């Protein structure tokens, strides 16, 4: 399993792997928003938590179809399916690799984007914490969507249609945690609910994703 994780990480970071594209996309998104809503900090500040989370969501989405598509094309997915580790484990490792290569750079860069969008300094720890807790759920749900659409032509568009509604609860609790701490309130409840969703998704969704993969590989 560790070998698989290493292989995926190497593939993602080498040339053509698209490493860092998600952060670049996030940066562009955050710099487009002030053109859309106006540069005044009074207008930017209330929308900043939502923009940051929606941005994280969309940048995650960009690289989702890579989770299984390349392996499906060159046949290594069939080998992985017959490997001695369970397919659920393969899904979890692939989601972990996706999280390490797209979400972790986002989390590290997020305070910078928070500054761009005039997020109050008091909410910065909560921004990092909510992204760190919430993005694993995004990667695993994305792996489920990628598993469902792996064999399809033009699967990418369908993938976003299937996955984005599944992201709604994570988005709600993530933005709510940041918003509450930006307003000086208690963000603990929202953060705990977010952690609950992440934990449940991590525990259960790999099974659904592996089931979908088995159907597609039949």
């Amino acid at each position, binding site marked *: 399993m560790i070998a698989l994780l290493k292989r995926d990480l190497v593939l993602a970071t080498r040339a053509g792997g698209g490493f860092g594209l998600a952060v670049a996309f996030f940066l562009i998104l955050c710099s487009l928003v002030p053109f859309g809503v106006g540069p005044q900090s009074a207008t930017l500040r209330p929308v900043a938590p939502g923009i940051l989370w929606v941005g994280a969501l969309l940048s995650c989405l960009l690289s989702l179809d890579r989770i299984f598509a390349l392996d499906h094309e060159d046949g290594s997915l069939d080998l992985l399916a017959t490997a001695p580790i369970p397919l659920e484990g393969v899904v979890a490792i692939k989601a972990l690799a996706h999280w390490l290569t797209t979400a972790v750079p986002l989390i590290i860069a997020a305070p910078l984007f928070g500054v761009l969008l005039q997020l109050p300094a008091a909410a910065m720890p909560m921004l990092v914490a909510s992204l760190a807790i919430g993005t694993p759920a995004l990667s695993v749900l994305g792996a489920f969507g990628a598993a*469902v659409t792996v*064999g*399809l032509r033009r699967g990418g568009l369908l993938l976003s249609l*299937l996955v984005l509604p*599944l992201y*709604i609860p994570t988005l709600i609790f993530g933005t709510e945690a940041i918003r509450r701490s930006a307003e000086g309130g208690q963000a603990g409840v929202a953060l705990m609910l977010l952690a609950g969703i992440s934990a449940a998704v991590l525990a259960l969704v790999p099974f659904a994703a592996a089931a*979908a993969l088995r159907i*597609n590989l039949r």
Partner: protein
Amino acid sequence: MSIWEYANPVKFMRVSGAMLPWTVAAAVLCCVAGVVWGFLTPLDYKQGATVKILFLHVPAAMMAINIWVMMLVASLIWLIRRHHVSALAAKAAAPVGAVMTLIALATGAIWGQPMWGSWWEWDPRLTSFLILFLFYVGYIALWSAVEDPDSAADLTGVLCLVGSVFALLSRYAVLFWNQGLHQGASLSVAPGERMSAIYRYPLYLSMLGFFLLFLALLLIRTRTEIRKRRLAALIAREMRT
């Protein structure tokens, strides 16, 4: 005699063919009677004539949720017992459910405009219906995207299970996010909240009408799907010879 006998497509076709005219007639009768009776009810003291949209809005909303539950049960039956009629029934129900959700959203907007002063509010109930509609759209899109019928049935079945959990989760997550304008349950039995009998009985009738309408559409669409499957099998046999 068990319910599983109807998993045989031949038996299903025979029974559903006999049921269909009666179901259609009853659906038309109940829908027309319920809506007309609803239209003849006196004006509400606060909401005036707009209250009459209730007889379309509530049954459509009820069916929108219940059709998803029916699809969930049908998907489970397909995934566990591999009855093809069940998978086809889930496929046939999805567009009907999506249209019911749209009717509920549209009548709600028309009702909300004079009552709340806006066509759309990010109220928990409205939002969760919009999310339900997105789930219907994804489900229908996945059915049409996968070519192999058995894989399509399997994948949409899994999607339906996961989607049900997340639709329910979103329903309660939006409560945390925003408090709403929409009233609570329409058919509450708590004293003081109970709807007056002059509105309640026509509402029951139009709910029954919408249910029968769904049943009739479901039977027609499932029969079409079975015939399509037979046709595909015939064509495949022709090609081989």
